[in-house]
């Protein structure tokens, strides 16, 4: 029998098949399922944040450059005269794009659900005349002050308000909800990292002897960490896909319910193609988080051995 061929040494780089060094059992422990749940919840939270962002952006675009002039005058005839004068003043300004007096019927229809259909009219509760104004460009405090000064010079009982200021509390509430969604996503990421840390520690313990052998054969911490990264990364990817599917299903169901509300404000909160792409990236971020956590966990544990 001839002697075996001895193979010379080389520099280090583990091949893909080296991941076999650890036992392979996909989706076996709790970690992939925890990742799936975390990804599903993250997808829903991010979708809510994006929808709120779209809603705020649409509302902002609609009222940007908008102002409302109220003529607060109890006597209907005098109120009409002053309203016509205000419309005339506003129409002659170059920075005004559109002026529209809200018809009394439309105003009555808007108020009817709260005051009743008979509460308004000549003998009913006096309501101010409303004039919608749309400026060329965005409304600024300076432009609002100029508009107010010009209108009040002719109609002292007029009050000019930027439409954005009315919805400012709504925008603030939306912003708070967005921060809440962001906070939830960060907490979910933290929980996912903790799940991966536990899984990596458990795998390290279960494979202590094998890791010792790899060390003795000249394997580096990086090579060992790489094996764990691949294994945990693949589990996280499968868990992430399951979570994405779950999250998308929940969004579809919620979207259908909100669409049923038939509300103008809610309609502005739909998700665009870019938003869906962002949501689709969440499992990939989950995989990245899992891989980085696994690497840090394994490397820090191995540093304590010789």
């Amino acid at each position, binding site marked *: *029998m001839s002697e*075996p061929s001895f*193979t010379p*040494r080389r520099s280090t780089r583990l*091949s893909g098949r080296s991941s076999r060094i650890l036992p392979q059992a996909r989706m076996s422990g709790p970690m992939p399922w925890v990742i799936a749940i975390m990804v599903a919840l993250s997808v829903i939270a991010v979708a809510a944040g994006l929808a709120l962002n779209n809603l705020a952006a649409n509302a902002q675009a609609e009222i940007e450059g908008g102002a409302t002039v109220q003529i607060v005058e109890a006597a209907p005839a005098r109120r009409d005269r002053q309203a016509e004068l205000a419309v005339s003043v506003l129409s002659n300004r170059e920075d005004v794009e559109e002026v529209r007096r809200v018809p009394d019927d439309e105003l009555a229809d808007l108020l009817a659900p709260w005051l009743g259909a008979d509460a308004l009219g000549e003998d009913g509760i006096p309501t101010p005349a409303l004039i919608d104004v749309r400026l060329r460009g965005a409304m600024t405090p300076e432009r609002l002050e100029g508009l107010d000064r010009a209108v009040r010079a002719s109609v002292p009982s007029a009050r000019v308000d930027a439409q954005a200021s009315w919805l400012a509390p709504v925008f603030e509430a939306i912003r708070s909800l967005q921060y809440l969604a962001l906070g939830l996503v960060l907490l979910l990421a933290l929980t996912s990292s903790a799940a991966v840390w536990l899984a990596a520690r458990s795998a390290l313990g279960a494979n202590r002897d094998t890791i010792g052998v790899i060390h003795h054969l000249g394997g580096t911490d990086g090579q060992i960490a790489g094996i764990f990264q691949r294994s945990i990364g693949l589990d996280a990817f499968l868990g992430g896909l399951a979570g994405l599917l779950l999250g998308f299903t929940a969004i579809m169901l919620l979207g259908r319910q909100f669409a049923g509300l038939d509300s103008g404000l809610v309609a502005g909160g739909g998700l665009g193609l870019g938003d869906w792409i962002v949501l689709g990236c969440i499992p990939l971020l989950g995989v990245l988080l899992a891989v980085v956590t696994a690497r840090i966990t394994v490397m820090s544990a191995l540093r304590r051995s*010789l």
Partner: protein
Amino acid sequence: MSEATTSIVQFDNVGLRYGTDREVLSDISFTLYPGSFYFLTGASGAGKTSMLRLLYLAQRPSRGMIRMFGTDVITLPRKNLPAFRRRIGTVFQDFRLVPHLSAFDNVALPLRISGMSESEIRKPVSDMLEWVGLDHRSDARPATLSGGEQQRVAIARAVIARPEVLVADEPTGNVDPDMAVKLLRLFEALNRLGTTVVVATHDVHLLRKVPDSLIMRLDKGRLSDPTGALRYPPRREPART
């Protein structure tokens, strides 16, 4: 040329204790030369395995100095140890095969760790398995192999990457006499290619099977030198490549 530069392993006044117990190795000083064949003998509990652990860099000594391949390995940063370990082949007394890998994959492990491609790995691993008489069991998991077969897989794994130093702890303890001789011939073949071989054994009959070998004897953690192997210059010139 100085001793440190010509030697491959140099122990100087090395002591080892585990925790606060008494020293299991005391005042160990010796020099191993490239291409030599050494037997490390001694009764059970004499400290053979502890000394081998120092040799294959699984343990740092409590005191003294160890140089390997011309480098002080006591102060060597941990991150540099793997490169040194790849230059050392180890046959463990308890084999330490990876249980869920086949015999082929266990033997291929050092080559995969050193970054060789699958196509480059196939032939040397097959040759090695054939040499140790396990080519027909290449797909078998360690649990399905006998003790002797596991030992042969462990030896094949230790020598496959052609280490500069081979450290074997009782490598023939579980094989029949014919296979023991065959494995010693494998070590000799590796030795002829320039590998320094250190075999720990308590089987005195084995020592006669390798006539050119040098003997180190451990007794209660202290080293004696029956063949003058440890002297500098040695009483008999070690084999050179």
